[in-house]
């Protein structure tokens, strides 16, 4: 396995001379020496007088600086100290992260009353303590300065009283003339809010509630309604499935409830010598998604053929089951062997398999249901008795609403948490309709594309400022509680509705309590007193009265031949040059656009930040003569040619980035970019490609066929990471197959078989190891490459915990990104359909660290606890350490990224990124904010180590294994990271380090890292591995 070749991009796979020359450079960019010394200063002689002048100036400056008065700092205590606040100590509150259908049960960390960090709530059986990047980053959105600071009328600030009076007057007028009111919202997880809307519908006549999801799952809901009579997303149990077949469902990254699914999925991906079993995951898709990159087998098919593959699988299973088959053409050039093998596995694992389809087409969804039904998965891996509510949108109703608006049939439109003027493919029709509505109100938090067109903006609180509840899955309830008083003059959406009803006004908080008292309090018998019950739920954050059990399925009503007709029309629509629109892990449907943490998070596959782009295959680029090159301008910058994409009557110019893993005749681009009114951070980042999609009767189709893609003749610079380090052919990731692993647990990691030899080699050294390492603690980490899915939650968790600055697109282009933990993505094998390994890379805390002995001022050195320490205030910024680090994990503050410098020209501030007094409130006071000119890197969350040690000492107790969790470990939804004490031989970490799969990155350099990795195991036959071509 060691001979396997890994590559980070296509350029590296088949390097040309320019690429090789670039890799030989010590620095990716030219040092700005010429710029600094324009006037031959280097040649000039310094006369004695100048020297004396300089000396005099320095002395005077030093004297002046010394005589500056020390600023007076104030310590202002509370007048009445709240009992729960201890200055200097964090308080934790259980709450929920809810944005539309996105859900995570969370714990919010507050310091002195301001939320600064989000972590997963381990008590929740939905998200099980996991989070994703979006939840982690939502704390920064709280301090977004672009949020509305109060109610607005016609985009001008107004007073609540005045706005309320006018809206009420208009509503009453509508009531009198028996007009029609429409409430257009995103998926609402809160049962109380849904009840408020129902109450509102009673108070006013003809109220229609339309739910709209920009990246819709409406087709699945429709299919479930038609085949089961349940209009909902099923509760999936990936942890019960031995075989997973996914058709374009990116369930680890963006599809419905990725954290929940990742938690379940990763449980089945952890192999050990005692339990060498894992699930078998086959992904059928047109472009390389994050989920596809984790699949054991990946079938790369043209979008028009996806449905045909599904029917083919269905037919084969049906033959085995003795059921009726459908008459459909075979998918073009199908890899029969892989399909047959998958069918065999599915059939063998009836009741323990799972088929999911992410395509928003009701016919495909119905076939999926039929397939799962044949495989006896209902009630077991697909549970409809307790369905999920995380997508509720209906495409048909949205389109009907737009039509009615245009026809003047709607008198009032209330918009909550959706941005149709941006995200609808037919936004123009919506805008036109909006002009005809007598009363238009938006509850969105900013003057976005939609809100700027309505009459009244009544901004909702941020989720961390308001009370709420959520029911992501039936019977799985959770509460949200405010962790800070509203920063602005905002009001909760349900509270506004309550206020406008003529009913006696009460606060939404009391409303929720009453709702819970009536509906959920009776569903338990542990507490007789509601207050006690409420406090318990509030403390835990969740209320899950009944466990999830296998259920009797609702009757499957079957499907008829009509689906084949629908399917054929779907396939026909995508023929020819196809375009696929997909959602990115970080950006979602565009609602997170003004969050710089998420904008700067590299895409898990392409590693591009701050942009969307058209992903094209190598062969496509060749036929269209599109070039991707590294351009030499203020650094080596990725420059790509642009293309003009025309589909569904819209046309957009996009940069074309060559990406492996894309089907022939297919191009792909991400939605969620190109916002024009998101705020300073998100405006103009990328292009809006929603207009390229279209609505059909079968649902919103985020794809198009017969697309015209023509070179536009321009080049565009992309900020792509992971292009500027070179592996030099050294093995850094290791992998094997499950069969081989079963034969020999050291498979793929044969070098470590002779443990005695390894031990001896590790102990042979010229340098004396730190004598304190054997005594006390010796911190270490183990990362399971088999569990890691590459989602990037750790990157954002670390960013939030450690005050890692945002640098902005221009700086990322120059490779100045600051993330302390990055995820490297390595391709191997077939460039058209590569295998992928994701490897989190952070400071390895080497016991024999190359960075330490080159530091001229000893700013970085080894601690007795095995930490590679970095003393920022001692660092003089020579960057020798970064140069000498083989893992390239050290980050240099080229400029002042947090706006704390006294000289404005030293600052480089990305909009909204911890640079104003407001956004700086997100900073963790336990971690110093680094200044310009110093090096920084992962500290193993030393502040958490120190805090846990202090807690243990204070109680006179030993530090327990697992007491310390680093931010990346806590944020990981796949539990891929283990942190602990290497000196504690019973610790989970020590067990991991003794595992046969355990290896250290670049161990040949004798750096003795404290971070180890575990070999990736693919559930794949060996022969398939050697010839990995599943091109259909």
């Amino acid at each position, binding site marked *: 396995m060691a001979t396997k070749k890994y590559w980070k991009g296509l350029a590296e796979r088949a390097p040309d001379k320019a690429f090789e020359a670039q890799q030989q450079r010590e620095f990716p960019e030219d040092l700005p020496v010429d710029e600094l010394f324009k006037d031959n200063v280097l040649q000039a002689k310094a006369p004695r007088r100048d020297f004396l002048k300089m000396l005099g100036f320095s002395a005077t400056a030093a004297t002046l*600086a*010394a005589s500056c008065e*020390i600023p*007076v*700092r*104030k*310590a*202002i*205590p*509370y*007048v*009445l*100290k709240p009992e729960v606040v*201890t*200055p*200097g*100590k964090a308080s934790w509150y259980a709450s929920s992260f809810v944005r539309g259908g996105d859900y995570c049960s969370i714990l919010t960390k507050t310091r002195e009353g301001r939320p600064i960090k989000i972590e997963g709530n381990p008590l929740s059986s939905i998200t099980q303590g996991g989070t994703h990047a979006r939840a982690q980053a939502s704390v920064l959105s709280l301090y977004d300065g672009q949020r509305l600071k109060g109610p607005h009328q016609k985009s001008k600030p107004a007073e609540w009283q005045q706005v309320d009076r006018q809206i009420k007057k208009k509503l009453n007028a509508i009531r009198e003339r028996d007009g029609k009111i429409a409430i257009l919202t995103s998926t609402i997880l809160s049962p109380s809010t849904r009840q408020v809307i129902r109450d509102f519908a009673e108070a006013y006549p003809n109220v229609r509630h339309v739910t709209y999801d920009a990246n819709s799952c409406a087709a699945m809901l429709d299919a479930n309604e038609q085949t089961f009579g349940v209009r909902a997303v099923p509760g999936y149990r990936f942890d019960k499935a031995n075989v997973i077949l996914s058709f374009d469902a990116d369930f680890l990254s963006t599809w419905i409830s990725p954290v929940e699914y990742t938690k379940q999925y990763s449980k089945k991906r952890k192999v050990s010598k005692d339990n060498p079993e894992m699930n078998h995951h086959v992904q059928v898709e047109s472009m390389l998604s994050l989920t596809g990159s984790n699949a054991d087998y990946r079938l790369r098919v043209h979008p028009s053929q996806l449905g045909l593959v599904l029917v083919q699988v269905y037919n084969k299973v049906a033959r085995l089951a003795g059921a009726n088959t459908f008459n459909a053409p075979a998918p073009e050039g199908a890899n029969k062997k892989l399909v047959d093998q998958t069918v065999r596995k599915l059939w063998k694992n009836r009741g323990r398999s799972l088929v999911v389809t992410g395509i928003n087409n009701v016919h495909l969804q119905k076939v999926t249901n039929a397939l799962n039904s044949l495989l006896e998965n209902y009630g077991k891996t697909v549970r409809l008795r307790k369905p999920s509510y995380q997508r509720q949108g209906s495409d048909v109703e949205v389109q009907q609403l737009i039509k009615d608006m245009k026809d003047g049939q709607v008198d009032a439109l209330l918009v909550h948490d959706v941005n149709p003027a941006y995200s609808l493919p037919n936004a123009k029709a919506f805008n036109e309709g909006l002009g005809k509505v007598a009363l238009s109100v938006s509850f969105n938090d900013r003057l976005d594309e939609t809100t700027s067109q309505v009459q009244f903006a009544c901004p909702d609180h941020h989720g961390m400022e308001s009370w709420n509840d959520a029911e992501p899955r039936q019977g799985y309830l959770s509460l949200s509680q405010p962790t800070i008083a509203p920063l602005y003059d905002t009001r909760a959406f349900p509270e506004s509705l309550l206020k406008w009803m003529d009913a006696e006004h009460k606060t939404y908080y009391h409303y929720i309590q009453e709702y819970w008292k009536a509906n959920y309090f009776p569903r338990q018998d542990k507490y007789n007193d509601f207050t006690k019950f409420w406090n318990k739920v509030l403390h835990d954050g969740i209320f899950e009265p009944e466990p999830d059990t296998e259920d009797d399925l609702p009757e499957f009503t079957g499907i008829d031949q009509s689906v084949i007709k629908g399917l054929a029309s779907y396939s026909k629509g995508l023929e020819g040059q196809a375009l696929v629109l997909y959602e990115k892990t970080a950006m979602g449907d565009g609602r997170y656009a003004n969050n710089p943490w998420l904008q700067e998070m590299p895409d898990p596959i392409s590693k591009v930040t701050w942009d969307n782009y058209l992903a094209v295959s190598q062969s496509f680029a060749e036929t269209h003569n599109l070039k991707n090159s590294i351009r030499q301008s203020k650094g080596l910058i990725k420059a790509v040619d642009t293309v003009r994409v025309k589909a569904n009557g819209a046309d957009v110019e996009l940069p074309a980035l060559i990406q492996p893993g894309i089907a022939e005749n297919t191009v792909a681009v991400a939605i969620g970019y190109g916002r024009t009114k998101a705020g300073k951070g998100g405006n103009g980042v990328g292009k809006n490609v929603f207009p390229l999609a279209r609505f059909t009767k079968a649902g919103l189709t985020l794809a198009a066929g017969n697309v015209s893609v023509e070179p536009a003749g321009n080049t565009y610079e992309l900020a792509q990471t992971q292009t500027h380090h070179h592996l030099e052919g050294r093995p850094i990731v290791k992998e094997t197959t499950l069969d081989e692993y079963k034969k020999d647990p050291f498979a793929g990691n044969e070098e470590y078989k002779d443990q005695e030899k390894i031990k001896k080699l590790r102990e042979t050294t010229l340098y004396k190891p730190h004598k*304190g390492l*054997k*005594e*006390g*603690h010796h911190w270490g980490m183990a990362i399971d490459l088999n569990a890691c899915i590459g989602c990037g939650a750790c990157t954002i968790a670390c960013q939030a915990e450690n005050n890692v600055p945002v640098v902005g697109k221009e700086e990322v282009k120059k490779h100045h990104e600051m993330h302390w933990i990055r995820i490297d993505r390595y391709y191997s094998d077939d460039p058209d359909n590569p295998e992928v390994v994701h490897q989190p890379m952070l400071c390895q805390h080497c016991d024999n660290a190359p960075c330490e002995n080159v530091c001229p001022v000893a700013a970085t*050195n080894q*601690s*007795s*606890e095995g*930490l590679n*320490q*970095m*003393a*920022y*205030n*001692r660092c003089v910024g020579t960057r020798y350490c970064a140069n000498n680090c083989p893992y390239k994990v050290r980050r240099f503050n080229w400029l002042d990224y947090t706006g704390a410098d006294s000289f404005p020209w030293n600052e480089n501030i990305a909009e909204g990124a911890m640079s104003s007094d407001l956004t700086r409130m997100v900073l963790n006071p*336990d*971690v*110093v*904010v680094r200044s310009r000119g110093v090096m920084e890197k992962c*500290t193993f969350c*030393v*502040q958490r180590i*120190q805090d846990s*040690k*202090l807690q*243990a*000492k*204070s109680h*006179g*107790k*030993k*530090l327990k294994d697992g007491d310390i969790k680093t931010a990346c470990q806590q944020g990981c939804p796949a539990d891929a990271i283990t942190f602990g004490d290497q*000196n*504690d031989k019973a610790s989970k970490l020590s067990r991991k380090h003794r595992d046969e799969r355990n290896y250290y990155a670049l161990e040949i350099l004798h750096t003795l890292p404290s971070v180890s990795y575990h070999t990736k195991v693919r559930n794949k036959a060996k022969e398939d591995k050697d010839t990995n071509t599943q091109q259909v």
Partner: protein
Amino acid sequence: MGKSVWLLRSVWVSVTFLTFLFFEFSLQAQPDGQKLFNQNCARCHKVHQDFTGPALAGVTEEHEEEWLLSWINNSPAMIAKGDDYAVEIYEEWDKQDMPAFPQLDEADIRAVLAYIEAETERGPGATVADAGEPGAAAETDDAGIKTILIVISVILLLIALALARIQGSLNRLVKEKAGEPVPEPLTIRKIIRNRKVAAAAVIVVVVFLCAKLYDGAASLGRQQGYQPTQPIAFSHKIHAGINQIECKYCHFNAEKSRTAGIPSVDVCMNCHDAIQDYPEEVFSGNTGTEEIAKLLAAHENNAPIEWIKVHNLPDHVFFSHAQHVKVADIECQECHGPVEEMDELHQHAPLSMGWCVNCHRDTEVNIMDNEYYSIYEQLHKDLKAGKIDRVTAADMGGTECQRCHY
């Protein structure tokens, strides 16, 4: 005759001196009724008005001294014994216990009673005019002695110089008389003109200046002795010194958190709800009552008090009070100095890194009694084997960068 007069005189002087001395001493040994009253009684009693307990004006006229002595010494015992009047007071004041004061002896109680008597005579509203500050007096005394010593040394030095000069002149005269050659006198001018001396002087001056420069540079940003004027003339001496309030009563976060915490106004009000009068002048020149009024105003108006931070560490230093106060059990005074003697607080220690590190090197850690330290097996072994006699913080990495900088 003369001799005996001298003897008599000296005896007389000694006796007078000793008498003064003892008189002084006995004066000082007399218990201070006011101080005792403030320390023990003022929490519940005022002289001229009812408070938690009854007003005490005229109490010495109402009761026998005997009865008072026994009541103050141990009132619960008297109630238990069933003393009529004791029970009557107890019932009248809602059965609130007055604690026993076994630490006060009869002389103390008499002093307190005398103070009450004096206060009774003075009548309500009168201020204590002559609250002399014994501390200040002591300080002046100390300073005086120092000055006298310096003056004496200077005089002695001058005498020695004069004598040496006279001896030199006499020697020269003797030599001149004997006809021996007389060396040139060594004048100051000559010494200054000497090259070696000049070189040495220059070196000394340069070294001195360099040392000064280094000290000055190193102390840039340090604020030892920093004593800002606070918005309220809060005296630590009155609170922690005279009234012996435990530091951690107000700075109650010290054992829990990184910061010891400036007490919030409601903590002050725990006591100052009752103690609103302090007619004496405090160090700011105002009376205590005036200063307390500022606190009451803050409480009333819900306006936080903007104290000025005295102890400032740079932002890149993470110091935890909990680690030092709770785990290491270090007295507050070790770093903050004799706070109980300071009226207005000032920064006692330099709070420099060298100062921190030195303490980490020197301070012994008790690793035997805290289970956390059991992982330091080698240190435990060495300690038992007598290889080392103590373990310091530095032995466990206490001087490493990332213990404080992260």
